């Protein structure tokens, strides 16, 4: 499957799973599972930074449209798409791993720990910005802190499960023909 088709399928599936499955699950007011931004975590390395942000905005805006609450997820998604390249640069093990692999995964980032750290930081930032914007409208400081931490934990569990369930085959690409 080409990268484009693969990403379009991911976009649609993740939005549908988020809105029709996860949003129907009411664990607790403070524990809100999110999975849709896995699309941003899994975006290819070689995509331009402007495109990453535009796609992230579209992803967030689509979910917002379903929830009839425009803006919140779009803002959070754009933020993590902007910070993603910096984080990859910091965590990627050796020079050139970006060119040898297509997209971030445990393998391309040299182990499960750096990869989960990468996913964890993005998740935390996403949740923090999202719930901060929500807290400005209703709720208070503790609401924001506790909701961010608890939701990050449950989201990371989901990402880990998704990673195990949908093992992505990552070819090692070399430029020696």
């Amino acid at each position, binding site marked *: 499957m080409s990268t484009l088709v693969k990403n379009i399928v991911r976009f649609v599936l993740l939005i549908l799973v988020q809105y*029709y499955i996860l*949003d*129907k*699950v*009411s664990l607790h*007011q403070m524990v*809100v599972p999110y999975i849709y931004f896995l699309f941003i975590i899994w975006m290819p390395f070689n995509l331009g*930074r*402007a495109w990453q*942000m*535009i796609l992230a*905005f579209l992803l*967030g*805006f689509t979910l*917002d*449209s*379903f*929830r*009839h*609450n*425009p*803006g*919140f997820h*779009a*803002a959070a998604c*754009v*933020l993590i798409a*902007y910070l993603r390249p910096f984080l990859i640069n910091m965590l990627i093990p050796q020079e050139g791993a970006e060119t040898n692999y297509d997209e971030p995964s445990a393998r391309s980032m040299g182990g499960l720990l750096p990869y989960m750290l990468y996913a964890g930081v993005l998740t935390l930032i996403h949740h923090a910005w999202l719930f901060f*914007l*929500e807290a400005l*409208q*209703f*709720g208070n400081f503790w609401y924001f802190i506790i909701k961010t931490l608890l939701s990050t934990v449950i989201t990371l569990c989901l990402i880990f499960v998704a990673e195990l369930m949908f093992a992505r085959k990552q070819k090692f690409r070399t430029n020696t023909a």
Partner: protein
Amino acid sequence: MRNVFLFIRRFSNFLLFILLQVLSIYLIIHYNKYHNAVGTAAMNEITGRVNKQYSEINDFFLLKQKNKALHAENERLRNMLKQDFETPDTSNTVVTDSIPYDTLGNKRKWLYQNARVVSNSVTLATNYIVLGRGAGQLLEKDEGVVDTNNGVVGIITEVSQNYAVVMSLLHKDSKITAILKNDPASGGLVIWDGKEPNYLSLTNVRKSAKAKKGDTVLASPITAKFPAGMILGTIDDIKPDVSTNNFVIKLKSAANFYNLQYVYAVKNYQKEEIEKLLDKVKSSRPQ
């Protein structure tokens, strides 16, 4: 000038980031006011279509429960049939002091319009319900919405051609005036604290009110949105507030928001007339 272009080129990513953030925050501020719940009717139409597909699949799994609800509704309607009642005396005539409109000589005030729920949520802080019926099928903004067993569901906040968005009772901005069935002189305001779906709070009920656990709470019939007898919920927990003269009441909502499928929007034919009258009084009042 050249430096300006160089600057834009150098920081293009950052500028795009700022632009998109500002756009998002503009959307948040602009569209999250009470009655501007959705704003873009176009997006409403698109997501409505996807939601409709989903709900058609989902309906299949809820057929059994729906059957039961329809049964209950049929029973209630049958009990209202005229043949259920014996007329004791035919020498008296009933006189209604309103202008006759329909063939029975009564003026119609309320019209029930059935609608299908195509999307619904209970887990957010701002829950909306989307109905598969819109302005093209004569739904209007501000109509009340009730479920098949007369439980209040919400109020329509936005209509597009084929879909309508209802602000659910489970919405942080939802405020509905309520009265107690056993003590119609007392009442309060039903709001949602965002904690638990299907549980609401009833505020502003004085301690002198005759309220106890299990009592029914109705939507106030003097507002222009719901007819008399629409149930908001039953009292689940009641305790006096130490610092004020009010009760703190927890309600179990009459409508089950987890499996809403068919609802009725209630149109008030006399609302416009009443509003016009009020406007007239207000404008003619001497300053």
